[in-house]
């Protein structure tokens, strides 16, 4: 089941450059929340702070509080690997493991963490691929074909299946459809609709129509600050902040 996310005074840095300034946000469980804003505004950095991926880059720093369900993401006793197992991530460019079969790609998160029950693995792989709407296309070549041999759109759904297989509570999607054609994009969006029944979804997108289509809530970022956060409908029809209005009406960015 999806859980809520509480973000309090979150700051993030790359070296001396501050990428996020004092972000506070309440993300509702079992809904999709879109993060929009011009390039370089900190959208990706923000979601990467939610699963502690930001700190994997050299010379980065984070302060503030993030609580996902009952878990203090930046708590003293919370290991990063535990956070990442509960907060799945789908990246901008499809990134399947090229040296692994389709099956192993999906099973990787479990197998590499020591999960050995073959029968259970088979079940989870099938269920995850079905959830990602990829099962029918790959079921005959699960162990024969490499994840890298699929088309771009299929690869991205494979990456979603891989993220779902570890049974996270939250799914972060960093522009998951920006490298895909309209048909694949449509499939991913359909997927987001189904997934929010069971997951809390945070999706970064450059495409405002996409945000309007899939997300109930939208946050607008500008220069590392959260300018406005509200129901998607409100953001796109009647924003409170002038800068949000300028952005969504295409006056800049």
């Amino acid at each position, binding site marked *: 089941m999806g859980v809520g996310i509480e973000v309090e005074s979150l700051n993030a840095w790359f070296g001396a450059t501050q990428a996020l300034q004092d972000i506070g946000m309440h993300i509702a469980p079992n809904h999709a929340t879109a993060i929009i804003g011009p390039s370089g505004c900190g959208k990706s950095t923000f979601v990467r702070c939610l*699963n502690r*991926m930001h700190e*994997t880059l*050299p010379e980065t720093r984070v302060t503030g509080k993030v609580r996902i369900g009952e878990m203090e993401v930046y708590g003293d006793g919370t290991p990063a*690997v*535990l*956070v*990442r*197992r*509960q907060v*799945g*991530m789908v*990246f901008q*460019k499809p*990134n*399947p*493991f*090229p*040296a*692994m*079969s389709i099956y192993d790609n999906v099973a*990787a*998160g479990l197998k*590499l*963490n020591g999960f050995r029950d073959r029968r259970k693995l088979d079940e989870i792989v099938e269920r995850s691929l079905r959830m990602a709407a990829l099962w029918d296309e790959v079921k005959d070549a699960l162990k*024969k*074909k*490499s994840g*890298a*041999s699929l088309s771009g759109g299929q690869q991205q759904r494979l*990456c979603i299946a*891989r*993220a779902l297989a*570890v049974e996270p509570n939250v799914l972060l999607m960093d522009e998951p459809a920006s490298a895909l054609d309209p048909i694949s994009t449509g499939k991913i969006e359909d997927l987001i609709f189904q997934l929010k029944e069971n997951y809390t979804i945070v999706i970064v997108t450059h495409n405002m129509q996409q945000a309007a289509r899939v997300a109930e809530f939208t946050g607008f970022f500008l220069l590392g600050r959260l300018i406005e956060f509200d129901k998607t409908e409100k953001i796109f029809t009647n924003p409170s902040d002038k800068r949000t209005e300028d952005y969504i009406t295409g006056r800049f960015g």
Partner: protein
Amino acid sequence: MAFQRGSMRNKAGARSEQISWMRRFEDHLFTALAVAAVLLVLLPLAAIFADLLKRGIGSINWAFLTRTPAPVGVPGGGMANAILGSGVILGIASAIGVPLGIGAGVFLSEYGRNRFGDAIRFTADVLNGVPSIVIGIVAYSLVVLRQRHFSALAGGVALGIMMVPTITRATEEMLLLVPVSVREAALGLGISRWRTTVSVTLRTSAAGIITGIMLAFARVAGETAPLLFTAFGSQFWSSNINQPIAALPLQIFVYAISPYDEWHRQAWAGALVLIALIVGTIAVVRLVASRGMMKGTA
């Protein structure tokens, strides 16, 4: 550019025809040059193979592959002990060189973006350039002087040291080719850093690393100088790593500088066997490795 050329064609047909003729000429010229370069590279290799075959094949028979050397003047005899010895020495060398090389390569690519890493990189490159006979002296003082006798172990240590820098640099280069996005995918699944390195990054670049190992292997398999005062050579059948042991390059060297025609012929045959063994080993390793890899990968 394309736009300009297009409008040129409309304005002056003759001019554009000339350009396309020039282009075709250039295209063919550079293709021809590239093919010539390939032939030039392959020529010495083919010549060596042909010569070895011609001179060596006549002396290869069952006895050559299964017998130990015969005393001077006695016809027959073979290099079976040298074939075994080379196998033993190369086995020891690989057991030392491969894990050390891969380990150092992993360290350099994952944790070596600093001064310390640069120092190791520099050291590895220098080690790569050290004459093999000097490496032999090192193994002599490290192993032979301590054991107080020559041994297969000492030979293996010498060749193993020589394998390390090649494998280190190959491993590092191959690991750096793995895109950051693939590592992030693994980290994002909650897989620990070392697990990611072993099961994802290393696995993704396995083909390239194996090529590096094979290069290092092929290079040391033909080394003679570092074995002269480590493995020393032997006329007898031995697989004891604590005793002096024969090796193909040593045996070829001894036979080649001897005054006997029969030994010269055997030296040629030995060289042919050595090359065949190296090519065979590489082929088998590649075959086994490709079995374990997925289709559709680079």
